[in-house]
Protein backbone atom coordinates (compact mmCIF):
# COMPACT_ATOMS: atom_id res chain seq x y z
CA UNK A 1 0.00 0.00 0.00
CA UNK A 2 1.50 3.32 -1.04
CA UNK A 3 0.06 6.40 0.57
CA UNK A 4 1.27 9.98 0.57
CA UNK A 5 2.22 11.01 4.08
CA UNK A 6 2.77 14.63 5.07
CA UNK A 7 5.63 15.59 7.43
CA UNK A 8 4.36 15.38 10.99
CA UNK A 9 5.59 17.50 13.85
CA UNK A 10 7.40 15.24 16.31
CA UNK A 11 8.40 17.97 18.76
CA UNK A 12 6.74 18.69 22.09
CA UNK A 13 7.75 21.51 24.42
CA UNK A 14 8.60 19.99 27.78
CA UNK A 15 8.46 16.38 28.97
CA UNK A 16 6.18 13.67 27.53
CA UNK A 17 3.57 12.89 30.18
CA UNK A 18 2.74 9.30 31.14
CA UNK A 19 -0.95 10.18 30.64
CA UNK A 20 -0.21 11.21 27.02
CA UNK A 21 1.43 7.81 26.45
CA UNK A 22 -1.51 5.99 28.05
CA UNK A 23 -4.00 7.94 25.91
CA UNK A 24 -1.98 7.14 22.82
CA UNK A 25 -2.17 3.40 23.60
CA UNK A 26 -5.92 3.66 24.31
CA UNK A 27 -6.55 5.31 20.92
CA UNK A 28 -5.37 2.14 19.17
CA UNK A 29 -8.21 0.02 20.62
CA UNK A 30 -10.30 0.78 17.53
CA UNK A 31 -7.57 -0.49 15.17
CA UNK A 32 -8.37 -4.18 15.48
CA UNK A 33 -5.98 -5.25 12.70
CA UNK A 34 -3.14 -4.61 15.17
CA UNK A 35 -1.76 -7.64 17.02
CA UNK A 36 1.38 -6.15 18.57
CA UNK A 37 2.68 -2.79 19.78
CA UNK A 38 6.26 -1.87 20.54
CA UNK A 39 7.12 1.19 22.61
CA UNK A 40 10.45 2.82 23.39
CA UNK A 41 10.64 5.53 26.05
CA UNK A 42 13.76 7.61 26.54
CA UNK A 43 14.19 9.04 30.03
CA UNK A 44 16.62 11.71 31.22
CA UNK A 45 19.28 10.03 33.33
CA UNK A 46 20.90 11.75 36.32
CA UNK A 47 24.48 10.95 35.29
CA UNK A 48 27.14 11.63 37.89
CA UNK A 49 30.20 13.29 36.32
CA UNK A 50 33.05 13.90 38.77
CA UNK A 51 30.60 14.33 41.64
CA UNK A 52 28.38 16.68 39.64
CA UNK A 53 24.89 15.31 38.99
CA UNK A 54 22.84 15.99 35.84
CA UNK A 55 19.63 17.75 36.92
CA UNK A 56 18.09 18.20 33.45
CA UNK A 57 18.76 18.11 29.74
CA UNK A 58 17.84 21.12 27.66
CA UNK A 59 17.00 19.98 24.12
CA UNK A 60 17.23 22.12 21.01
CA UNK A 61 16.86 21.14 17.35
CA UNK A 62 17.20 22.42 13.81
CA UNK A 63 13.48 21.80 13.62
CA UNK A 64 12.76 22.24 9.89
CA UNK A 65 15.63 19.96 8.93
CA UNK A 66 14.78 17.41 11.63
CA UNK A 67 11.17 17.18 10.46
CA UNK A 68 12.23 16.68 6.83
CA UNK A 69 14.70 13.98 7.90
CA UNK A 70 12.13 12.30 10.15
CA UNK A 71 9.68 12.25 7.26
CA UNK A 72 12.27 10.42 5.17
CA UNK A 73 12.90 7.91 7.99
CA UNK A 74 9.14 7.38 8.34
CA UNK A 75 8.82 6.67 4.59
CA UNK A 76 11.77 4.23 4.73
CA UNK A 77 10.34 2.40 7.73
CA UNK A 78 6.87 2.06 6.20
CA UNK A 79 8.47 0.74 2.99
CA UNK A 80 10.54 -1.80 4.92
CA UNK A 81 8.11 -3.09 7.58
CA UNK A 82 4.39 -3.97 7.40
CA UNK A 83 3.36 -1.47 10.06
CA UNK A 84 -0.18 -0.37 10.80
CA UNK A 85 1.07 2.84 12.39
CA UNK A 86 4.02 4.63 13.92
CA UNK A 87 4.25 7.62 16.24
CA UNK A 88 7.34 9.57 17.30
CA UNK A 89 7.48 12.33 19.91
CA UNK A 90 10.66 14.12 21.04
CA UNK A 91 10.88 16.78 23.72
CA UNK A 92 12.39 20.23 23.34
CA UNK A 93 13.31 22.55 26.18
CA UNK A 94 14.39 21.64 29.68
CA UNK A 95 13.55 18.08 30.75
CA UNK A 96 14.32 17.12 34.34
CA UNK A 97 16.06 13.86 35.29
CA UNK A 98 13.45 11.11 35.50
CA UNK A 99 11.16 12.66 32.90
CA UNK A 100 10.44 11.11 29.51
CA UNK A 101 11.97 12.92 26.50
CA UNK A 102 11.38 10.40 23.70
CA UNK A 103 8.36 8.24 22.82
CA UNK A 104 8.48 5.88 19.84
CA UNK A 105 5.40 3.72 19.26
CA UNK A 106 4.98 1.20 16.44
CA UNK A 107 2.11 -1.22 15.77
CA UNK A 108 1.70 -4.13 13.39
CA UNK A 109 -0.36 -7.27 12.85
CA UNK A 110 2.44 -9.44 14.27
CA UNK A 111 5.07 -8.56 16.85
CA UNK A 112 8.31 -8.82 14.86
CA UNK A 113 7.66 -5.91 12.50
CA UNK A 114 6.65 -3.63 15.39
CA UNK A 115 9.70 -4.55 17.50
CA UNK A 116 12.26 -4.33 14.67
CA UNK A 117 10.81 -1.08 13.30
CA UNK A 118 10.79 0.51 16.76
CA UNK A 119 14.47 -0.35 17.31
CA UNK A 120 15.47 0.92 13.87
CA UNK A 121 13.59 4.20 14.34
CA UNK A 122 15.31 4.86 17.68
CA UNK A 123 18.76 4.12 16.22
CA UNK A 124 18.21 6.23 13.10
CA UNK A 125 16.66 9.10 15.04
CA UNK A 126 19.67 9.30 17.36
CA UNK A 127 22.13 9.18 14.46
CA UNK A 128 20.37 11.34 11.88
CA UNK A 129 18.16 13.99 13.47
CA UNK A 130 19.78 17.37 14.16
CA UNK A 131 18.94 17.53 17.86
CA UNK A 132 21.25 18.61 20.68
CA UNK A 133 21.11 18.27 24.45
CA UNK A 134 22.72 20.47 27.05
CA UNK A 135 23.24 18.51 30.27
CA UNK A 136 22.59 20.98 33.06
CA UNK A 137 24.13 20.01 36.40
CA UNK A 138 22.74 20.65 39.87
CA UNK A 139 25.18 23.58 40.32
CA UNK A 140 23.89 25.04 36.99
CA UNK A 141 27.11 24.42 35.09
CA UNK A 142 26.62 22.42 31.89
CA UNK A 143 28.17 20.20 29.25
CA UNK A 144 26.93 19.14 25.81
CA UNK A 145 25.49 15.64 25.65
CA UNK A 146 27.19 13.08 23.40
CA UNK A 147 25.31 10.06 22.08
CA UNK A 148 26.93 6.71 22.83
Amino acid at each position, binding site marked *: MITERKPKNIFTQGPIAATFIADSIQKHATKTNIGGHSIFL*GQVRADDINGNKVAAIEYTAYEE*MALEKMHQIREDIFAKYPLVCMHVH*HSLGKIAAGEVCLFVFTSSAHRKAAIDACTEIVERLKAELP*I*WGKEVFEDESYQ*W*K*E*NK
Partner: protein
Amino acid sequence: MPVQVIVFGQLTDIMGNNPVMVEHAADTSELIEQLNQRYPALVNKPYIIAVDKQIVTGHTALSGNNTVALLPPFAGG
Protein backbone atom coordinates in the same frame (compact mmCIF):
# COMPACT_ATOMS: atom_id res chain seq x y z
CA MET B 1 25.52 37.49 -2.32
CA PRO B 2 25.10 37.34 1.46
CA VAL B 3 25.07 34.04 3.30
CA GLN B 4 23.21 33.44 6.53
CA VAL B 5 24.97 31.14 8.96
CA ILE B 6 23.18 29.38 11.81
CA VAL B 7 24.76 27.16 14.44
CA PHE B 8 23.50 24.74 17.07
CA GLY B 9 24.57 22.83 20.17
CA GLN B 10 28.08 23.50 21.46
CA LEU B 11 28.77 25.90 18.57
CA THR B 12 26.32 28.39 20.12
CA ASP B 13 28.89 28.78 22.91
CA ILE B 14 31.22 30.24 20.26
CA MET B 15 28.91 32.04 17.82
CA GLY B 16 25.81 32.74 19.90
CA ASN B 17 22.18 31.95 19.18
CA ASN B 18 21.51 34.51 16.45
CA PRO B 19 22.18 34.04 12.71
CA VAL B 20 25.50 35.46 11.54
CA MET B 21 25.67 37.19 8.14
CA VAL B 22 28.66 36.79 5.84
CA GLU B 23 28.76 39.27 2.94
CA HIS B 24 30.56 37.25 0.27
CA ALA B 25 31.47 33.59 0.07
CA ALA B 26 31.64 31.71 -3.23
CA ASP B 27 31.62 28.31 -1.60
CA THR B 28 31.49 26.59 1.78
CA SER B 29 35.30 26.43 2.10
CA GLU B 30 35.59 30.19 1.64
CA LEU B 31 32.78 30.66 4.15
CA ILE B 32 34.42 28.46 6.79
CA GLU B 33 37.74 30.27 6.27
CA GLN B 34 36.04 33.59 7.00
CA LEU B 35 34.23 32.19 10.03
CA ASN B 36 37.46 30.70 11.40
CA GLN B 37 39.03 34.15 11.25
CA ARG B 38 36.10 35.76 13.03
CA TYR B 39 35.70 32.94 15.55
CA PRO B 40 39.10 31.30 16.20
CA ALA B 41 37.48 28.89 18.68
CA LEU B 42 35.59 27.34 15.74
CA VAL B 43 38.80 25.91 14.23
CA ASN B 44 38.99 22.12 14.65
CA LYS B 45 35.55 21.85 16.27
CA PRO B 46 33.64 18.80 15.00
CA TYR B 47 30.64 19.62 12.80
CA ILE B 48 29.03 18.86 9.48
CA ILE B 49 27.62 21.46 7.10
CA ALA B 50 24.11 21.76 5.72
CA VAL B 51 23.27 24.16 2.90
CA ASP B 52 19.56 24.93 2.85
CA LYS B 53 18.92 21.88 5.07
CA GLN B 54 20.88 19.47 2.85
CA ILE B 55 24.07 17.97 4.24
CA VAL B 56 27.02 18.71 1.94
CA THR B 57 30.66 17.66 1.75
CA GLY B 58 33.70 19.23 0.10
CA HIS B 59 33.64 22.62 -1.60
CA THR B 60 29.98 23.33 -2.18
CA ALA B 61 29.13 26.38 -4.27
CA LEU B 62 26.89 28.98 -2.67
CA SER B 63 24.52 30.44 -5.21
CA GLY B 64 23.34 33.33 -3.07
CA ASN B 65 20.86 33.83 -0.28
CA ASN B 66 21.70 30.42 1.15
CA THR B 67 21.33 29.42 4.74
CA VAL B 68 24.32 27.46 5.91
CA ALA B 69 24.01 25.51 9.15
CA LEU B 70 26.95 24.16 11.12
CA LEU B 71 25.82 21.00 12.90
CA PRO B 72 27.92 19.52 15.72
CA PRO B 73 27.45 15.80 16.56
CA PHE B 74 23.77 14.99 17.08
CA ALA B 75 22.54 14.05 20.55
CA GLY B 76 18.83 13.37 20.28
CA GLY B 77 16.91 10.78 22.25
